[in-house]
């Protein structure tokens, strides 16, 4: 990954990006997802600039005379069971799914990556850490997250913690596996011969060289974290009404399922599109980062 290489050689990142760009579906998904992140982020800016007055007036305040109004030009996604604009609620809801999902996965990457790197590198720690991870892996992800939230109580932080813990073993396994392969390479031996410390070998050589599977796993995990947030909110253990989280919106919509279809269809479609984009990007990244597929 040095600038001094001869000819047209590209770094791993540039090379992967070059191949990723050829996958038009993946690029389109990336654009859509970035747009969603941007919109979700802008809600924070709007809240900050208007002192949450737009949020209070449009997203939370109820207007019972116009409840369950179907989609129209004025309100493209219709109005919900309390007469609130569904489009705005979906937009404001994006920040829970996207940012909380990312936060949980970020935490799980750090924690799982740390544990995985240590157990790949030190034999003694390996047994203890991986047996602990086996225990967490013996419970289905969503069940584990549910049990943790049930024990900790419902709050945004607990929701993130629950998802973080339930995702950690996957990352530990992925990182451990790639550390075990990278560890045997000659350049690690060379670094050790030059007197590099364990810490330096892990940080400078092993982690950069085992990034590819980690990046793919991150993308897939954000999708699964978003699904977990929506699921837990749907069963009443995540984000609570009146906050416009997509899963919580679906949970409320269940009561009115006989009267109106749009309040059920729209939040679920938002979840599905987000997860679909992440899955397509994940697949694209896997192909792009796989050195065996290099031409």
């Amino acid at each position: 990954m040095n600038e001094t290489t001869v000819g047209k050689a590209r770094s791993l990142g540039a090379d992967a990006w070059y191949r990723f760009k050829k996958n038009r579906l993946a690029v389109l998904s990336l654009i859509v997802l970035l747009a969603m992140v941007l919109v979700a982020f802008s809600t924070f800016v709007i809240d900050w600039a208007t002192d949450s007055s737009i949020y209070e007036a449009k997203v939370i305040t109820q207007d019972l005379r116009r409840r369950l109004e179907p989609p129209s030009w004025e309100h493209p996604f219709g109005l919900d069971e309390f007469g609130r604009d569904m489009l705005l609620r979906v937009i404001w809801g994006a920040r829970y799914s996207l940012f909380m999902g990312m936060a949980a996965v970020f935490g799980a990457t750090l924690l799982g990556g740390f544990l995985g790197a240590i157990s790949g590198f030190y034999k003694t720690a390996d047994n203890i850490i991986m047996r602990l991870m086996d225990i967490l892996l013996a419970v289905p992800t969503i069940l584990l997250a549910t049990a943790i939230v049930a024990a900790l109580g419902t709050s945004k932080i607990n929701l993130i913690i629950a998802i973080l813990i339930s995702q950690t073993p996957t990352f530990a396994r992925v990182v451990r596996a790639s550390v075990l392969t990278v560890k045997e390479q000659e350049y690690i031996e060379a670094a050790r011969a030059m007197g590099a410390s364990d810490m330096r070998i892990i940080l400078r050589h092993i982690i950069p060289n085992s990034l590819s599977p980690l990046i793919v796993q991150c993308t897939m995990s954000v999708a699964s974290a978003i699904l977990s947030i929506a699921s837990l909110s749907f069963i009443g253990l995540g984000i609570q009404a009146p906050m416009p989280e997509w899963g919580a919106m679906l949970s409320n919509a269940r009561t009115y399922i006989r009267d109106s279809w749009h309040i059920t269809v729209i939040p679920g479609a938002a979840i599905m599109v987000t997860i679909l984009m992440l899955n397509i990007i994940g697949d694209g990244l896997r192909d792009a980062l796989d050195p065996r597929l290099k031409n």
Partner: protein
Amino acid sequence: MAKYVLKRLLLLIPVLIGVTFFVFTILAVAPYDPVTVILGDGATEEAIEGMREELGLNDPLLVRYVNYIWDLLHGDFGKSYKTRLPVADQILRRFPNTILLATCSMVIAIVLGIPLGILSAKKQYSLLDNVATVGGLVSVSMPNFWLGLLLVILFALKLRWLPSQGMGEDPVAILKSLILPSITLGTGIMASIMRMTRSSVLETMRQDYIGTARAKGISEGRVTVRHMLKNALIPIITISALQFGNLLGGSMLTETVFSWPGVGRYMLDAIKTKDTPAIMGSVILMSVSFSIMNLLADILYAFVDPRIKSQYRSARRKKSFKGEGAAS
């Protein structure tokens, strides 16, 4: 082979001890008092103390855990805080319903997923393949509970063909009430089985023995079933066993949407009423069945693949061969 199975079974024991301990500990330190859950807020000091003693809450955590496991091994999951009924009866009455639903979902997923995967692979990049690939991606990305709600809107409320809630009484009614939840749970799994079949068949299609089989003049159907599918089946069997385990331990959302009387919904109800023994019992039962299915997937994998099986067999044969040599 028997040695391998035995070894894997023994390795399951520490994992299960760990799972039960983890679940027990997080629920034991949960920030609510079980005594107030049972007695309500207005209980006297004396009654509270008596109840704490009765439930063994005054003992240290480790003692409580050992007692719990001891009872568990005797088939006693404790009594529900809410109903004061034995949790074991409640769970065991519901578990068959969860198994029934999981089985039906798996049948749908396999019956549709494998043929679709084969067709996609044989007609790679055709319209059918592209539709199946995109459809597969979409159905993997769909939240189960949302798909369930959509099916309810269409087939139960608009068309009125099928019931939307609960489980029927007689066989025909049970079958009818099974259809929507099974499709809900089966769709995502069908997509992953289809994807797996497609890539697995694509890989075996390029093997030399397929060309040999065709050259011998075997009909295309026979080549597909006897030569391609049989060899492509190994990863498909593994993923099916894993998914079945996932269904046993993770179908509580679908059970909630359809008011299906399974263990998952029982657990969610118990969480709402803070009924710790009921939560613990259901989580442990679901995790154990999930782990056993994972184990079964590994064993099946070793069992179905003749390459893996022969490793064990040839090791034994070599040994006995050596033995003979030494004797002569």
